């Protein structure tokens, strides 16, 4: 390691020549409840509007106000939007963490800070920009009690000036943020300007970081995964929604409520949906089952603790064959764990949720676009296979802002599965609820209220025969369980197919399997591996459990397959192990960690190269 002096030289010495354009990680360190959220969004959108790919990740505590929060904006011309380990540009507003924040920076990094913090004393190998926020905020914001909030807008202006972000874009982003609240907008805009002008007048650019216009965000949108999921559910025709608040899933339903009120209420004021806040998760899933059984498209959203509480009902849904959709916005477990940090830790326990031989269908979105599309897949699969479908999102995807191409309007009509109407029954005379008529394992059902004397059947979690009659006969039980298992096998060819990305022209011997938000680190890591180690790696992104053919083929075609995931126990690797040909198991390698931060590319690259003996 270089001494700070040398480092300072390295970092600052030949700064002028080398400009770092559209490639940086900006971290705003504040206190939660201080309203920095809107400032950060404005900064994020400004860069986005400059045509530069961005992502914003909020690292917040599990409390309401007064604890440290870090918001990281990554701008990257190549479109890498995963978390980046190294921070290039810190905006230090929080006295409590300022020292540690600064000490952890790499030489040459930039520190924009609240002057009284005197951070410039801390190190000599960084670029420091002191800003007297309190002095600047007073004149623009006469109302003292608003200053705490408005203050944050000042750093937006300072950063814009230092990075060369067009003020017109900042203003546009700000007006969008405050929408109809014009007074607030003007007040905040004044603050941004104050910051901008202060920087122009008092700060001389000493760092290499610049934002420059490009065209990589043309026509794109910015949205969080939970809102995207809410939209997806609305367009999937959801009619009954039950929920019990829990971070990070609450915003999914809260956004859904807003969308539904706006777009799913008839001219006569009647709602085409019912959304109920249940007393807890047992009630939430119970209502989902009741509604799904009675013919509604029903869903709930929760996180790990809620999933655990739903275990008994999940087994009933599996065995009595009742459709329903459960969103699991994964956070760090076990137990209450880290409620405001991200993970992929519920995969294994959800796949096998409930006692007895229970297996559940899982979908794993990696993007806001997939939150939208998989919402529709989930409802279709649930009704097609008369079972629960769990959509395994996570906090990083659900609660952070992501750019995306606009969502596509659903191509397929809604698939309500095998439901017999009065007319069908008139024709058929009767039916056997649990008979495998079509050879796919899926029986036909009727909805309560069907006006036909033969429509009724008995739904139960106890042993039953094809006619849904109570039975303890060993043969009835075994046959029925095998049929239910057949449904699961059939599902393999109906769940969303994995995404395959070839490593290069030549067929690679090494493969990576990942899923969900790990995707973003993987695509970046693959490039690092290619460019720095010239290892070219094939990549398969799994989207669903049970696995389709492609997963097995991918492993067959590679000597070593690294399964990358964000949990401790390599949960996806476990599911794959249990599913593939035994002779393929030796090919699997695990890269699995959990600490609550979104996965970054560098960690994957380092660990994979080490394991590859590079």
């Amino acid at each position, binding site marked *: 390691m270089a001494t700070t002096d040398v480092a300072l030289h390295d970092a600052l010495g030949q700064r002028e020549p080398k400009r770092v354009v559209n490639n940086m990680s900006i971290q705003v360190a504040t206190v939660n409840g201080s309203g920095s959220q809107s400032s950060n969004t404005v900064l994020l959108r400004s860069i986005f509007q400059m045509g530069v790919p961005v992502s914003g990740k909020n690292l917040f505590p599990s409390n309401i106000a007064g604890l440290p929060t870090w918001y990281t904006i990554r701008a990257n011309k190549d479109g890498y939007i995963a978390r980046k380990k190294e921070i290039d540009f810190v905006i230090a507003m929080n006295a409590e963490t300022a020292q540690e924040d600064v000490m952890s920076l790499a030489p040459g990094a930039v520190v924009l800070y609240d002057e009284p913090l005197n951070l410039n004393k801390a190190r000599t190998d960084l670029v420091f920009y002191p800003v007297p926020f309190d002095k600047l905020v007073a004149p623009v914001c006469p109302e003292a009690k608003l200053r705490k909030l408005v203050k944050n807008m000042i750093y937006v202006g300072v950063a814009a000036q230092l990075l060369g972000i067009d003020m017109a874009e900042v203003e546009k982003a700000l007006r969008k943020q405050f929408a109809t609240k014009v007074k607030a907008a003007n007040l905040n805009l004044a603050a941004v300007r104050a910051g901008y002008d202060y920087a122009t007048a008092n700060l001389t650019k000493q760092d290499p970081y610049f934002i420059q216009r490009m065209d990589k965000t043309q*026509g794109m949108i910015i949205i969080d995964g939970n809102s995207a999921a809410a939209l997806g559910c609305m367009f999937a025709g959801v009619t009954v929604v039950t929920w019990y608040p829990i971070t990070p899933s609450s915003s999914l339903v809260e956004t859904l409520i807003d969308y539904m009120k706006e777009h799913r209420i008839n001219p006569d004021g009647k709602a085409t949906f019912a959304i109920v806040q249940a007393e807890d998760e047992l009630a939430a899933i119970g209502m989902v*089952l009741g509604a799904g059984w009675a013919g509604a498209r029903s869903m709930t959203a929760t996180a790990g603790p809620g999933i655990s509480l739903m275990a008994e009902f999940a087994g009933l849904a599996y065995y009595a064959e009742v459709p329903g959709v459960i969103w699991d916005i994964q956070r760090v477990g076990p137990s209450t764990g880290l409620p405001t940090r991200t993970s992929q830790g519920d995969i294994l326990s959800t796949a096998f949720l409930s006692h007895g031989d229970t297996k559940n269908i899982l979908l794993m979105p990696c993007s806001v676009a997939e939150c939208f599309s998989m919402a529709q897949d989930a409802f279709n699969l649930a009704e097609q296979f008369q079972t629960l479908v769990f959509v395994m999102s996570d906090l990083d995807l659900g609660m952070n802002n992501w750019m995306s191409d606009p969502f596509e309007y659903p191509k397929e009509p809604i698939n309500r599965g095998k439901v017999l109407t009065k007319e069908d029954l008139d024709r058929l005379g009767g039916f056997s609820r649990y008979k495998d008529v079509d050879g796919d394992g899926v029986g036909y059902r009727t909805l309560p209220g069907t006006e036909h004397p033969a429509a009724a059947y008995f739904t139960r979690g106890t042993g039953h025969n094809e006619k849904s009659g109570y039975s303890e006969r060993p043969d009835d039980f075994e046959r029925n369980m095998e049929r239910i298992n057949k449904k699961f096998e059939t599902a393999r060819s109906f769940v969303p197919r994995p995404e395959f990305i070839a490593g290069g022209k030549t067929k690679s011997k090494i493969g990576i399997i990942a899923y969900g938000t790990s995707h973003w680190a993987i695509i970046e890591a693959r490039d690092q591996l290619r460019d720095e180690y010239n290892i070219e790696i094939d990549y398969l992104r799994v989207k669903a459990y049970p696995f389709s053919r492609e997963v097995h083929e991918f492993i067959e075609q590679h000597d070593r397959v690294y399964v990358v995931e964000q949990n401790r126990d390599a949960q996806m690797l476990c599911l794959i192990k249990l599913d593939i040909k035994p002779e393929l198991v030796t090919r699997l390698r695990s890269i699995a960690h959990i600490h609550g931060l979104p996965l970054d590319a560098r960690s994957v690259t380092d660990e994979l190269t080490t394991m590859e003996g590079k």
Partner: protein
Amino acid sequence: MATTSTPTPAPKINRIGLTVLDYRGGKTTLCAGCGHNAISERIIDAMYEMGVSPERVIKPSGIGCSSKSPAYFMSRSHSFNAVHGRMPSVATGAMLANHKLIALGVSGDGDTASIGIGQFVHLMRRNLPIIYIIEDNGVYGLTKGQFSATADLGSKLKSGVLNDLPPIDTCAMAITLGATFVGRSFSGDKRQLHSMLKAAIAHKGTVMLDVVSPCVTFNDHEGSTKSYKYMKDHEEPLQDISFIPSFQEIDVDYDPGTTVEVTMHDGSRLRFSKLEEEYDATNRIKAISRLHEAHEKNEVLTGVFYVNPEAPSFIDMLNVTEEPLATLPESATRPGRQVLDQVMEELR
């Protein structure tokens, strides 16, 4: 054997043209003499006489001997035998999906007052349209007779074990929490239970009926407070109840001195006579204190304790479409392309 064939009389039919047989269920597998069987009979009669279409009825239940009974009445109605203590949430979901259904939920005292008290409490708050019947024998029948949370203080098990915890009065609780038709009856009190069930069918909102239903196998002995004998000795009917359905022609009028009438939401009338002087079934607070008194006097008060025919139900509050949500067409549940375009535009 008669050698002359006599013409068999046409079977009696109700106003929708069904015979009582159309309301029957499968053969019971409960113990002979179990109170639950008697309740099933009363349900069949009440549904038949009220001319309810069996296809519109759903029978959610929990787990227990009581919760099995939906298999033994109304086979033409859908049943959902859920998990233990969670019938309320399943019933709620079903009614959200299709508010035109008539929910007749069957539970037990263990299923409701022990494991299920949480969902019970929240169901009562919502005034969901449902007839919630607790077949109350003070024990867990299906697991062979342990005390449930409605067992009375000092009640004795066959083994001699005494119950040392106070009982939960599900009626007092239901009234306190917001249920709009609350009563208690006894599986052996044919007339009373019959009228109460018919009134229940006419009610809009949550009907909560706690029906004492002796477990002949585990809780019908000396020392039990839920035995046939104990009920014979301690049942204290609050009123004499009669019910005049909306579709029945006006009958002779009555003496307002000794009789009070409550007009139900559908125009039918619930008539109480020989009441305790000045007991008012529309007064929540009085009803609750009266129930507490009953406990201190060791009497098993039966009858309709509280009724409020006009309170808005959970479905009213949700203001959903007349067409059940379950059967709304895609055109009603999937907004058009322009909606998505608009939303996308806002996110740019």
